[in-house]
């Protein structure tokens, strides 16, 4: 019955209960939503790091201006640049290189020759160490000439045929979501992309009209050998190989890391402010709710409720309304982020990858627990005060 009385009390005051639920919902929305947002940006960044997957990226000198490079490599605006393969060979001969592989870029045009406008990235299956491990997760076989693998966001499916510069390509696999621009890119082996580059030249649709597709690369990815520092190898390349620029991939994504930090700090501050205010309002709300019912609590004492009974009644009301609010807020946060994550991603301009369902659940449960702790702590003050009331004195007062 005492459990029931708490429910009855909540039902009897729908407005007051509604405000309590709304408040706790706001708290859980903030903490769950904020945590999921930050976690999604973090895993987006981690995923980008993994896709870059190399210590050093070498690009032709012409592409070195950071904005150009970032545009293509980080933001995924379709683009391309080339350098002679000799530079790759020169780099490969230097000391301190554990893994090295070239990549080949081509952007498909938005009309005419091509099914869709995308960034096409070619890799060399013999040496590649960044893209292959990731493709393996969706496609175990060797890519044949003419095979392509598409990013998760592309509207193409295994078995489809896509046309680029008049060449028919067969979709062999679709990749897992990464939350980065790689989700809207197309991957293929070096032979295939060379065909595509050649075809784009034939059609006069490539900005670099005087290249030989067989003897160019776009970027060179390097993992540094043990015993060498990244700076050392990077400087070595910049000194010994002409007309290239070696950059640390960590540095390339430092801009993204910085804005991620800025955004997550902002979210953190917002959570602290809303929680600070929310807990104060909850304190007041419980205190008011208990004060206006002083006489009822005194009546319960007369009937034989103990001090503990009164405190537990207040706590039950707090837990019930807190639980309802916390669950609502959490559900809204998870559903909201799931439904609008593309829009959020565009708004933030950061790689965005929702955590796994398990992690979402865990975050929700922790958020609900945190709101319950805050709500019950705020109610505990009133519960303690009401348990100590002077029953006789209250009964003397005017009703």
């Amino acid at each position, binding site marked *: *019955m*005492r459990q*029931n*009385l708490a429910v*009855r*009390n909540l*039902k*009897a*005051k729908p407005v007051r209960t509604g405000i309590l639920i709304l408040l706790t919902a706001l708290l859980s929305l903030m903490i769950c939503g904020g945590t999921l947002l930050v976690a999604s940006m973090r895993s987006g960044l981690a995923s980008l790091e993994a896709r870059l997957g190399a210590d050093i990226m070498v690009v032709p000198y012409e592409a070195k201006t950071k904005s150009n490079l970032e545009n293509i490599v980080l933001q995924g605006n379709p683009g391309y640049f080339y350098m002679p393969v000799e530079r790759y060979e020169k780099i490969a001969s230097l000391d301190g290189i554990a893994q090295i592989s070239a990549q080949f870029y081509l952007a498909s045009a938005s009309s005419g020759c091509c099914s869709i406008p995308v960034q096409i990235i070619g890799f060399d299956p013999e040496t590649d160490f960044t893209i292959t491990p990731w493709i393996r997760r969706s496609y175990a076989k060797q890519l044949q000439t003419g095979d392509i693998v598409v990013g998760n966001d592309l509207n193409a499916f295994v078995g489809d045929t896509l046309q680029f510069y008049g060449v028919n390509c067969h979709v062999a696999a679709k990749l897992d979501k990464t939350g980065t621009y790689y989700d809207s890119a197309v991957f293929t082996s070096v032979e295939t992309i060379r065909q595509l580059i050649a075809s784009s030249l034939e059609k006069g649709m490539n900005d670099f009209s005087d290249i030989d597709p067989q003897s160019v690369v776009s970027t060179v990815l390097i993992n540094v050998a043990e015993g060498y520092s990244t700076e050392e190898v990077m400087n070595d390349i910049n000194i010994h190989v002409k007309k290239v620029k070696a950059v640390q991939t960590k540095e390339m994504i430092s801009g993204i890391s910085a804005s991620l930090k800025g955004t997550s700090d902002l979210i953190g501050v917002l959570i602290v402010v809303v929680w600070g205010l929310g807990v104060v309002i909850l304190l007041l709300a419980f205190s008011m709710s208990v004060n206006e019912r002083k*006489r*009822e609590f*005194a*009546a*319960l*004492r*007369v*009937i*034989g*409720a*103990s*001090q*503990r*009974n009164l405190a537990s009644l207040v706590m039950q009301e707090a837990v019930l309304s807190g639980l309802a609010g916390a669950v609502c807020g959490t559900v809204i946060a998870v559903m909201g982020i799931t439904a609008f994550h593309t829009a959020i991603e565009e708004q933030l301009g950061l790689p965005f990858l929702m955590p796994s369902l398990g992690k979402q659940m865990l975050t929700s449960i922790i958020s609900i627990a945190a709101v319950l702790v805050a709500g019950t702590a705020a109610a505990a003050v009133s519960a303690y005060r009401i348990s100590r009331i*002077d*029953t*006789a004195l209250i*009964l*003397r*007062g*005017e*009703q």
Partner: protein
Amino acid sequence: MNVTTKQLTKEFPRKSGGSNRFTALQPLDFTLESGKLTVLMGRSGSGKSTLLNLLAGLMHPTAGTVMVGETDLYAMPDRELSAFRNQHISVIPQGQTAIYSLNVLENVLLPITLNGTAGTSEIAYAKQLLEQLGIAELADVQPSELSGGELRRMAIARAFVRRPEIILADEPTADLDDENTKIVFESLKSAAHNGAAVLMVTHENGAEQYADRLCVMKSGVLTDAEE
């Protein structure tokens, strides 16, 4: 069960502050006997409610003891004292004491449902009490819709519902008409004659005729009225 006080005393700090204390109940040796309706009269402010609250275990005495049967009320921790009050002592306090989220019948049954569930016979008895007090048709109504007199009768029914051994009523007929006053007096009297120890504080003229024992409180001193 009898309720017996030994040197029971209550002092309050003066409202004006200072170290000045004022004695609302002078040291009192008194027995509230079972099977009897004891009527307590006296001027407002003489200490009647103070004594009643002390007997109910609702107000810690400055000195002295209250024994209910073999039990020393104020020697128990709050939890035991509350449970003891719930089982043995019914109080009809001054003023309104409704729980507004429950309907009238649920309010009446609350002493039982506080720590358990009401059985069919208990529910039937609660309805019978409402019937006796003339508010049977209000069983499903919320207290906010009741008049002062109806609320009071609800509180009286609630005090009777556990068939308590001790009933302490503080001006139970304050907002009742003559007819209902008579009903309340008679039910208190019959509870006493069924074995309960009943104390009724009242101003009502005519209450004397129901009394098995008539006491008067004057400035914190209780005396038996001379016949």
